[in-house]
């Protein structure tokens, strides 16, 4: 409700839209991003270069984009969802053939002023497409087998291209994000139960068969799975990273070692300390208090998106808000689980905090869509 408006069932127009923005959400996003600036400043040894300043500029650009996106009516985004998705696929194909090789895999398109990572884009456009699809699809058809195969096909297209890069982490996030959209849309829970139980069954069978006559995989494949699941079995590779990461987290204690006092990050014991492992620096320097606060902030962001989704009656707006909130949740949950040694190391950045232009811009645009849904709802 806005303080200037009495009438109900009206959609705000013009500059007044600004008053209807979800300002608490803007505030929290800025807070999380600021934590990111602080940490980037710290891991650079108390310097705005090379990361913190660039991150601030991207955030400013991203915020501008967010406001612009928020001002555009939400139905515009529904109508262009298909176009955005096709555009993303084209970009992924360009990466496939022309992309720069970074970190051992092809992920970027060099635009000159920044490096675009289409797989980041795919996370959001997939959510938009699926939201538009279920908005279009009559409710009673949602759980019919044919109408389930169609969205599965939509999901598998970008997953296949991202896997080719290869980027297992993003592929898994895409699958989980897509699955979440189908869940929100109301696909019969039986499908989910079937998929989950059969997945569990396959995994169980694979591990049970190990060392027996009917072994399903080759031995070296098992070895690879072992290192993936338990990095400490490879202490010089990813195991080293996880060990150092846990040391950094643990040595933070209750209140941390103080800003810029984290020895693990300052002395380079931490890997990727400005990107995927930035959370460990935060936890080391600000302790349990700092780390848990960030977790709470993230939780609040998700909750605000969900509340906003619950208030709208528009199906696309609702689904896209929930989908973006869910994707955002997947981001930070997977990243935190990874650095705390609860999940295998897959390259997933900490949203809004890790250094990285594409992820930052894409996330802020996504929040712009959530804002748009929030603004353009009938009151």
């Amino acid at each position, binding site marked *: 409700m806005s303080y200037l408006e009495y009438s109900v069932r009206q959609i705000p127009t013009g500059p007044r839209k600004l008053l209807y923005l979800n300002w608490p959400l803007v505030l929290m996003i800025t807070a999380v991003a600021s934590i990111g600036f602080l940490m980037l400043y710290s891991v650079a040894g108390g310097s705005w270069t090379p990361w913190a300043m660039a991150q601030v500029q991207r955030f400013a650009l991203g915020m501008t984009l967010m406001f612009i996106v928020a001002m555009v*009516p939400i*139905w*515009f985004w529904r*109508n262009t969802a298909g176009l955005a998705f096709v555009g993303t696929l084209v970009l992924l194909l360009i990466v496939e053939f022309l992309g720069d090789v970074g970190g051992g895999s092809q992920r970027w398109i060099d635009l000159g002023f920044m490096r675009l990572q289409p797989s980041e884009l795919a996370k959001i456009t997939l959510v938009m497409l699926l939201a538009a699809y279920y*908005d279009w699809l009559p*409710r009673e058809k949602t759980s019919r087998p044919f109408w389930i195969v169609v969205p599965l096909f939509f999901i598998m297209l970008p997953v296949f291209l991202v896997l080719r890069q290869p980027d297992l982490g993003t592929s898994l996030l895409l699958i989980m994000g897509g699955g*979440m959209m189908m*869940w*929100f*849309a*109301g696909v019969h829970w039986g499908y989910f139960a079937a998929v989950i139980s059969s997945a569990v069954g396959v995994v169980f069978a694979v591990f049970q068969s190990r060392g027996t006559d009917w072994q399903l995989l080759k031995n070296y494949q098992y070895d690879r799975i072992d290192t993936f699941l338990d990095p400490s079995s490879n202490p010089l590779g990813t195991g080293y990273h996880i060990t*150092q990461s*846990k*040391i*950094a*987290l*643990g*040595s*933070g*204690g*209750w209140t941390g070692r103080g800003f810029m006092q984290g*020895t*693990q990050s*300052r*002395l*380079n*014991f931490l890997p990727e300390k400005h990107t995927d492992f930035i959370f460990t620096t935060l*936890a080391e320097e600000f*302790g*349990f208090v700092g*780390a*848990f606060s960030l*977790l709470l902030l993230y*939780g609040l962001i*998700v*909750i605000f998106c*969900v509340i906003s*989704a*619950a208030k709208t*009656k*528009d*199906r*696309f707006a*609702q*689904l896209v808000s*929930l989908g973006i909130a*869910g994707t955002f*949740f997947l981001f930070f*949950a997977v990243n*935190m*689980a990874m650095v*705390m040694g*609860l999940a295998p190391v897959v390259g997933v950045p900490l949203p809004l905090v890790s250094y990285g232009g594409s992820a930052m811009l894409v996330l802020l645009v996504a929040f712009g869509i959530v804002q748009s849904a929030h603004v353009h709802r*009938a009151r």
Partner: protein
Amino acid sequence: MKKPRKDPSENTGLTTRRAVIMGGAQLAVMGVLGLRMRELQVKQADQYRLLAEENRINIRLLPPARGQIFDRTGFPIAVNEPNYRITIVREDAGDIDEVLYRLSRIVSLSPEKIDETKAELKRRSPFVPVTILDRLSWDDVAEVSANAPALPGVTADLGLSRAYPMGADFAHVIGYVGPVSDFDLNRIEDPDPLLQIPRFQIGKTGVELKEERELRGKAGTKRIEVNAVGRVIRELDREEALAGQDIQLTIDTELQNWVQARLAGEAASAVIMDVQTGDLLAIGSAPTFDPNLFVRGISTTDYNALLNDPYRPFRSKAVQDIYPPGSTFKMITALAAFEAGLVDANETVRCVGHKEVADTRFHCWKRAGHGNVDLFKSITESCDVYYYDLALRVGIDNIAEMARKLGVGVRHDIPMSAVASGLAPDKAWKREVRDQDWRIGDTVNASIGQGYVLSSPLQLAVMTARLATGKSVEPRLIKSRDGVETDISGGQDLGITGSTLDTIRRSMYAVSNERRGTGYRSRTVNAAFKMAGKTGTSQVRRITAAERARGVTRNQDLPWERRDHALWVNYAPFDNPRIAVSVIVEHGGGGSTAAAPIGRDITLRALYGDTPPLSAYPNAARADVRNTFRQMEALLRSLDSDRNQGTKA
């Protein structure tokens, strides 16, 4: 732009329900994340804090300065010399080839050294300093420092390294240091972490080895912060090392130098001892070697040359080698007989040049015989038959006991390497070691210091000091540690009848000062410094009956290694004994000709405190002495200039 085509009021209850279920699941996941944070950051925080500290903190040892060694007057013998090194750091150097090329134009740098350095640089991390050159002169260092701008990454720094300014003269006494070897690590039981430092130097022989614990000191530590690749970020704190104790020897450097010069050219040794305190004033052994070679790393060629030298420069002949003491042993046989109460001083024995014992003929050195011989004459003229007779009466066990009482066949505990025990043989020893019965002929041989009897020059000096004082003088090499005087041990009365000792002493005086004495030619005419001595000549070979029939070959005609050892012991001044001296010249021939003059010279040198004046010598000897001193002077001068060069280089 299309308006939403669906009725916004359509029921979205299902989606909301689904969202709530999903929210619950997400909450659960966040709960797990929070619990994990608590587990790591609260419950196991201490453990991880410790691991983080272990990660970042390295403890480095600070090697202590090794204790220095001085002589009795405070003159330095073993010191820690500043050792200038040039090191290079790869990451600071930039173009290594260019920098090394420029360096090679300033200091001499062989192409091999350059290749070596490059290989080492490649192996190490870019920030680790690698030593290019070691032991540079100050001039070179100054030159390098002046050119520092053209030599990025190159620095001159300072370490300490052992140096022996007196060079070869003290090689046997103080030994030398060298880097810790695996052998050392197995031998030494103390787990001092210092020993693990690469190139850490410890004592290998001599005082350096025996006093290692005192000299080494205690390691200090510094805690440094390092990053993940081992680069040092800063020093956190440090505990300084505790320097080793300084040791003062009883040796007098100038006397030692002089003795070494006097012995030069021979395979010989001499020991000079203070008869009251037991202080070893000089322990000479020739030839010798330069211990500095070992500190710097000796070449195989040099080492083999020293090792294969027939004069055995590595051995300290004074304390490590043992010889049949020959006639210098006669005082012991006499004392044993007198103290047993079997003989008195006036009793005479007839010497006809030989004595038959158990069907074997034992000869006196004088074929014609000495006629009637009493104790005084037996020592003065060194009659052998007199002692054959005494020994048969007193028995070997009494002789061995007296020998040990006087310090022969006993290991004297001085801090030098491989101090020999010698041997005062008795019946039990032969039974046990040789598994043979003692035979009467063995006693006869032992009575004149031949056969199984073995003594080091050190032991003979101790014997002489004990004869001079009648007290159990013990040799002492360490005068003080860190300024604290060491105990003087011994000094108790030996319990030998005074009158007997007196006769022995007077006889020894006669050896040096009476016309018939075997040491008369090596006497001094300075009445204040009169000596009491005894010559000795110990056989290296057995003279066969056939050889004797042909006429004994004269020593000079034999090959060097088969000639007799020449020995001499004396104390002086006679009426107020201050020093005891023992000399041995390996394969030098007769004691009176080869050893006694050396004994006389170093006795006078010690008493005068300087090169003795020719007026101390009888006229007949002055020409020879002047000649000897001239040669020594030249030698000392050249050694001096070598040393000055050595300190510069």
